[in-house]
Each structure stands twice: as structure tokens, then as C-alpha cells.
């Protein structure tokens, strides 16, 4: 996991955490239990989290703190979860989001 900051000159060594396996788009990957799904994938060099439903262009992590919903994925069948906030658990099944724009209640004219 070359993307990890194991030793940091100011923050010191990263805490010991429990490595678990999960599935991303059919591929078995590993991440630390409890870390955001997006962080685990980023550490593996996986940055394309979904594709635009309009033109197929790649989309990935943008704000990192749950504001923008760009990193939305499907976890164990539950759609539109933000992978920057949703923690890794052993054996979860993560898939790229498929919800087209406008297909949720907040999209209705206010």
C-alpha cells in the first residue's frame, strides 16, 4: 500500500489498524476497518469511483468531507452512500453508483 503515510515527521507513526477484505466492483481489495471506503481505495491507487450517467466520464473523490456527494457508491445494495464518510467493514460489497441525476427527492423543484 504505497499510498499510505505510515511515518509522518510531525504526526508520527500511523496507528495500528485491522486490515480487512471487501469487494469493489467485483474485485477483492483490502482496507483498514473503520476508515472511509474512499480512503482505502485511494491508498490502492483506485480513484475512479463511478461514471457520469450523462456522458460516462470518470468521477471520484472531490470534497472528502461529505459535502459534495461526488464519491457516492452503493454499499451492500444501499445506494447513494458517500464513500468519503462510509466506513470499511469486512466483506462489504461496494459498487459504483448508478443513480441518474435528478432521481432523488431533493431534485424536485422546491
Amino acid at each position, binding site marked *: 500500500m504505497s499510498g499510505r503515510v505510515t511515518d509522518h515527521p510531525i504526526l508520527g507513526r500511523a496507528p495500528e489498524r485491522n486490515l480487512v477484505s471487501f469487494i469493489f466492483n467485483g474485485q477483492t481489495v483490502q482496507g483498514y476497518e473503520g476508515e472511509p471506503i474512499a480512503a482505502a481505495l485511494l491508498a490502492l491507487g483506485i480513484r475512479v469511483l463511478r461514471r457520469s450517467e450523462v456522458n460516462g466520464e470518470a468521477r471520484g*473523490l472531490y470534497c472528502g*468531507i461529505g459535502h459534495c456527494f*461526488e464519491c457516492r457508491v452503493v454499499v451492500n445494495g444501499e445506494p447513494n452512500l458517500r464513500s468519503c464518510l462510509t466506513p470499511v467493514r469486512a466483506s462489504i460489497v461496494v459498487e459504483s453508483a448508478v443513480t441518474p441525476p435528478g432521481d432523488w427527492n431533493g431534485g424536485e423543484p422546491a
Partner: protein
Amino acid sequence: MTGRSVDLAVIGGGPAGISAATVAARHGLKVLVLDEHPQPGGRLLGQLHEMPGHGWWRGAEIARTMLDEARAAGVEIVSGAAVYGLRPQWEVLVQGTPFETVTAPRLLIATGAAEKSVPIPGWTTPGTMTAGGAQVMVNVHRVKPGKKALMVGVNVLTLTIARELALAGVEVAGIVLPPLGPFSAESANPTKIIAAMSRMAGLAPSPLLRLAGSVFGPSSAGLGAALYPSWGVKVWGLPMYLRTACVEIRGQDEVTGVVLEQIGPDGTPTGRRRTLEVDLVCISDGLYPLAELASAAGCAFAQVPELGGRVPLYGSDMRTTAPGVFVAGNVAGIEGAQVAAAQGQVAGYGIVADAGRIAGSDPAILAARTALAEVRRSSPIQFHPRLADGLTTLARAWEAQVQAQAEALGGRPV
């Protein structure tokens, strides 16, 4: 539908929310903190500041201490709790939790800030992030968001986070400006940036601002943007190019590079372009208060650019115009985490006084306000050179609002 009932619901588990919650719990209130993130602490978790004479200030350590104190005081903190609405006086609608509503006579809205950006062609390509997002990845989750980064935007956030990326082993290829256009009137103009940064330089005893002093002023400010070398100047050893804008982000599925353009002292493009290979682009145009819930609560607002934009009006005890609703932290104006924590204390005492747990004349109330003023003076980070003017504007708007409300009720001004 399952619901909880408490004396105080705190929305946002950052430094403001946690410190207010601790004060309230210590005075006997039943306090529930709702935080959307996997772990509480807010953006404090990712912050690092070098303090003059005191070494490094690590936000994660401060957060741990604050959270320990809160729990010891009896505060209940629920993570993964996304608040999606409010019903009056007050029912908090929440998801991601075993309960779906929280009813409380008093609310503290401590939802912090969101990051402003500048849209650049290609900015939806994975590998483009907000500067704050990159900070969270590298300092909180300990994952490098890329190998070689370009920072777009010259401001307190990008300078701070560029250094943090470098500390974690990410190569910082440069700090440049966003392209001139409808979305970047101030932030794409080298002359205006130099003026703003040199005003900041004299304000607070922080290394960042002292650094700004050495790079931006006072002598350099007099030189003007025209004389800044196109090959850049070094900030903490990192190259900053004040006469360069990032005009395009390239890459099919991931960022592979950027197109940079040389710009004039006012940001005007010169047509001289070059490409640079990077795999990470961090854009930031500063922060704005994330005040949606204060709007939903019906709070009155004022436009205060020095505080980051539209902020809820609040009194000296942090109460808003909505009954029982208090605010603290960046939702009330963009300042550093220490200020947010001190403001949380003020709000906490405001809440316990409002709940009748202490007298309005209790010396702790004044002490908390004095402490807030002191923290503001010594804060290691400051986002706007005319913060004090903004606070004055807001205080006057509050007084005008209180007077108008009193007159509307037929009573005398309070």
C-alpha cells in the same frame, strides 16, 4: 419512528460543538452531539500549525483531549448521524442513527464551513480535489491523495495544506492562481492577492503570517505584482507562481497534467502556455459558513464578507434570532479552530444561562467572552485581514434586529 429527547441537541462534533456540549453537560444538561463523520472532532482532526516557540500544534491531539473531557462530563456523541432537517422548537430529523428524531428545547448549530472552489475545465476528473479534502486524506486518514500536486489558489488554506502535503511526502509542483473569469474576480488577480496577503502579514504572531510578511510585504508589497518573477518564489521551500494560472486540467480517467498560462499583474492571460505533469490538483477559494440548518430554523442573517459570507445574526451569548437556537464555530464566521472552541464555550454558558442553570450575571459568562477575545488575538491562523470590522458589522446588525423585534412587540428596546 423512534425518537430521543434531550435538553440540548448539538449539530456538529467539531471544536465548537464539543466545547459547548461539555460546558452544558457540566451544568447538568442532558446533551446529545450529532456528528456526520465516522469519528467526531470536525476539521480539527486534520489540522497542524507550527506555533512560535511551542513547536507543532496537532489538531488530532487537541480533539482527543476535548472529546475525553466531553464524555467525562456526560456528553453523548453519536457519529455517522446526518441531520437532514428541522421542525420548530425543536425536532431534529436525522439518519444513519438508531433513532430518527431528536427533540430538544435548545439547539446548537455548529456545522462548520464548506469550501469554495473555482471551476476549471477538467475539474471533474478524479485526482482533482478541494484543498481541504486533500488535508483530510493525508492528515486524518493517512493516505496520499497523489504523488505530485498542483495547488490552485493562493490563500491561507492552500499555503497551509501545500506544506502539509509536502510533510507527508507528496511532491508539490507549485502553487498557482485560478484562471481569470466570472468565478474568480479577486483570487485570479496577483496584485489583489499580494495586497490581501501583505495586510494579513502584520496581524497575528503565526509562522504562516510571518512567512506571508517575508514573501508578500511590507517591502515586497510595494514592489507590486509586475515584479514577481515568473520562475516563482519559495514558500516553505515550495514554489509559488503568482504570475501563473491553471487554465485546464488534463486526463481521461484520472488527472495526468495541467495547462498553465502566464498572466499579467491583473490576471490577464498572456497566451504563453505550458503543460505540467501532475496527478493531483487541489483547488481552493477559501471557506464559507455552512448555515443551511440555521436557515431552516428561520434565523435572521447578514452578509459579512469578512466572516466568509452570509452568517446568522447572533448575540454576545451566541443566541440567534430563532428561539432556543445558538450557533458557534465557522457557521458563525470563518475563523480558526481555537476560536471555534472558545466560541463554543461562550455558547455553552449562553445555553446554561438560558436554561436557568446559572445566573445571567455568573462570572463564568464574562470569563468565557474574555477568553474568546484573547484567543482571537493570539490565533495562529486568520482568514481575513479585516475580521474585526466584520465582527462589528455583525454586532450592529444583531442590535438593530433585537431593537426591531422589541418595537414590533410594542415593548421598549432591550
